[in-house]
């Protein structure tokens, strides 16, 4: 088959299809999202089931149910999603699986789009789950197929851990052959599927035996190998393998270096590594995130009584935080090997404009945050607890309406904690619709149960916007396009015991501000649903740009400085201008004190 340009995420999806995946589940999260989107688009054609789940724990539990029935199952998430799914993972690894269960957990060193730089290889070791670490899209595709085989051979879930520079890297990839697989899928009663203390003890023992055998098998895995020869020794994994090879070329020592590439950090291929370590007393380990290979080698050296001079993260030869790249790796190898590298001093640049990601022109969240600030009072001391989504950007000036952001759903619960610690301190919790379904509901129930006077604003834009507009339970559409009954936020909240629930359009500023004020004054938990669809949804048609009436405009600049909309600009000493990108939401009309802006939705 001809080669084509595939993103790592697309390649992983095609690998899963080739492996005969029967059920695929996921919750979106950068950089993992496109794996499942690709699968969902192919599900009908290849006859498998694909669903966006409410959160990662749910996704893994659904997947686990399918896997113990004998189906090949794939579940995808970003690294912090695995924290949410930790509970079923640890228990499920004890009990094991029947059909292959592969988790693709995408790490984000940098981090570019995440709360932490946590290392899933480390998590895999803690959970006692085998983990594969691909270096590029082609290898990721081959590894996902291998991961299914390993999972079925050892009856264990297996994690494939790509990083951002595998997920969002394009490569000329050869698609695998897709053959139909007929595996018998039937849940057999009477199997070992009930976790129970005495069962756990036995299963734990079996798990350790399996890992020991798999560690031995990994020593001969085609994904682990020694390459080249010479006096220098460098061990590496993941995308760092490519950085190392390029750096060695640049430093002109590629012909005098032996590389050890380890793609199975857990269980560690001790035999392969031991032979390498016996040959090289002095070596450098280059890996992103945590010193996983480095620690495994130090342990191994201790176990077999080797004396090593091992460099890496522990002696700060390799940076301990952030993403690696060719330049950083070249510098690390140059320092370690005593080779020099040419550098060029770039002359100082002129001042560059500060460009940060901001809410889009016409984004309904801008209106919501502006209303929240207005309702709280400009100089008020109200604490705004925020959450994960596009709306985290509400922290940016001039809106400055997000004081905290921790993890999915924490806006609601952190507000309660702040109010409990400091009684009388006003809080407003803000989170989106998809995040509410993911992990907001339990926090609301907690507030109702414990009688906390929560003021919660749910930004309902009818999508999961930040990760690329995925549907969720409130949208009435599934991953594969079926139209289903939408879960009604109002009814969910009523069911949780809320007695104050109001839905408003945030662009109708006066109504929105009044509703929040009312919620703040209400004696008991209260929720405002800010309902207005994301401006980027294909079914949302933006309106014509607003028009500024130059005669009425007094150049006060409030339309620009109050809301920070990218479609409104104003040069010093001139009238404000409306750019083409204006979606005509009309929030600026409400802001203008001189009634000088016309058009818009209101």
């Amino acid at each position: 088959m001809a080669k084509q340009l595939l993103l790592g995420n697309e390649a992983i999806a095609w690998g899963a299809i080739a492996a005969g995946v029967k059920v695929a589940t996921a919750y979106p999260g950068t950089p993992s999202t496109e794996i499942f989107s690709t699968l969902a688009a192919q599900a009908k054609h290849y006859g498998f089931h694909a669903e966006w789940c409410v959160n990662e724990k749910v996704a893994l539990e659904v997947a686990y149910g399918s896997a113990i029935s004998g189906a090949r199952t794939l579940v995808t998430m970003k690294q912090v999603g695995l924290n949410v799914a930790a509970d079923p993972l640890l228990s499920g690894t004890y009990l094991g699986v029947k059909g292959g269960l592969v988790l693709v957990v995408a790490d984000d060193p940098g981090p570019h789009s995440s709360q932490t730089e946590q290392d899933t290889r480390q998590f895999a070791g803690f959970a006692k789950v085998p983990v594969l670490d691909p270096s590029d899209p082609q290898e990721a595709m081959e590894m996902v197929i291998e991961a299914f085989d390993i999972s079925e051979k050892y009856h264990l879930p297996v994690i494939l851990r790509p990083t951002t520079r595998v997920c969002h890297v394009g490569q000329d990839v050869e698609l695998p052959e897709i053959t139909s697989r007929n595996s018998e899928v039937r849940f057999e009663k009477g199997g070992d599927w009930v976790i129970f203390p005495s069962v756990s003890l036995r299963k734990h023992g079996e798990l350790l035996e399996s890992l020991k055998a798999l560690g031995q098998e990994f020593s001969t895995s085609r994904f682990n190998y020694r390459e080249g020869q010479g006096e220098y020794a460098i061990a590496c994994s993941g995308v760092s393998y490519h950085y190392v090879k390029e750096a060695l070329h640049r430093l002109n020592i590629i012909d005098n270096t032996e590389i050890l590439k380890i793609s199975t950090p857990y269980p560690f291929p001790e035999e392969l590594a031991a032979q390498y370590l016996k040959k090289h007393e002095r070596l450098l380990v280059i890996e992103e995130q945590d010193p996983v290979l480095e620690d495994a080698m130090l342990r191994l050296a201790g176990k077999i009584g080797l004396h090593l001079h091992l460099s890496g993260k522990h002696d700060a030869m390799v940076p301990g935080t952030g993403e690696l790249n060719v330049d950083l790796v070249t510098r690390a190898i140059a320092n370690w090997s005593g080779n020099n590298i040419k550098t060029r001093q770039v002359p100082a640049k002129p001042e560059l404009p500060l460009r940060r990601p901001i809410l889009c022109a016409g984004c309904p969240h801008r209106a919501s945050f502006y209303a929240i600030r207005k309702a709280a009072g400009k100089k008020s001391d109200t604490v705004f607890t925020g959450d994960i989504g596009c709306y985290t950007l509400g922290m940016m000036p001039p809106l400055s309406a997000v004081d905290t952001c921790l993890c999915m759903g924490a806006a609601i619960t952190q507000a309660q904690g702040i109010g409990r610690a400091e009684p009388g301190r006003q809080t407003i919790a803000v989170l989106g619709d998809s995040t509410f379904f993911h992990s907001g509901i339990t926090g609301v129930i907690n507030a109702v149960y414990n009688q906390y006077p929560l003021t919660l604003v749910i930004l309902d834009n009818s999508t999961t916007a930040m990760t690329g507009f995925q549907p969720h339970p409130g949208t009435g559409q599934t991953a594969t396009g079926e139209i289903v009954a939408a879960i009604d936020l109002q009814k969910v909240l009523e069911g949780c015991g809320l007695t104050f629930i109001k839905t408003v359009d945030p662009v109708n500023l006066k109504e929105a501000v009044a509703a929040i004020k009312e919620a703040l004054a209400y004696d008991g938990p209260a929720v405002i649903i800010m309902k207005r669809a994301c401006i980027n949804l294909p079914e949302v048609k933006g309106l014509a740009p607003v028009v500024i009436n130059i005669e009425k405009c007094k150049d006060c600049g409030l339309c620009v400085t109050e809301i920070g909309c990218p479609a409104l600009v104003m040069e010093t000493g001139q009238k404000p201008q409306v750019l083409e990108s204006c979606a005509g939401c009309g929030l600026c009309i409400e802001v203008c004190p001189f009634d000088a802006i016309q058009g818009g939705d209101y």
Partner: protein
Amino acid sequence: MDIIMCGVGGQGTVLTSRVVGEAAIKQGYEVRTSEIIGMAQREGPVVSQVRIGTKLHGPLIPDISADYLLGFELAEAVRNLDKLNGKGRALVNTHMVVPPTVYLGISNYPEEQLIDYLKEQTSGLILINANELAAQAGSSKAVSAVMLGAFATLCPDIDETMLLKELLARLPERVQEINTRAFRLGKEFVEGETR
């Protein structure tokens, strides 16, 4: 061959990198592309890296190594100039996307200084008003097509017809004519500049 494409979210750098990458694969080259997606990239700075050749390594271009820089926005071109090698060609759209921080008084956009810096620091600089050419072709959104047409003239290694074909394959029918015109305008502009 290493190519850096930079601009502001929504300008089409990702589309352009796919087009160049796919065209190169059709010519039998290996390709690596890399970009950062997510965290509401609209209005934020975006960079796509494209590496084309044989026996490629990783997806990231080292500093001072890129052979071409396609700057879709003036300030972003300067921000990423460290990637370009001494003999590299820079094709820079003079169109400015001024971020709100400038209007809020938090930062500045010194247009003339930025252009002077580009002129001083690059030997093979071509300044092009791609937005204006796109508008001339029929839509200010056809900036990618203008940049691709201009790139096709600058870079003889990638087949021009293949670039246009791969671009059109990714666009809806109704905008194909406009984009074909925009591609030609970009191409002709660079031909005029380099003649």
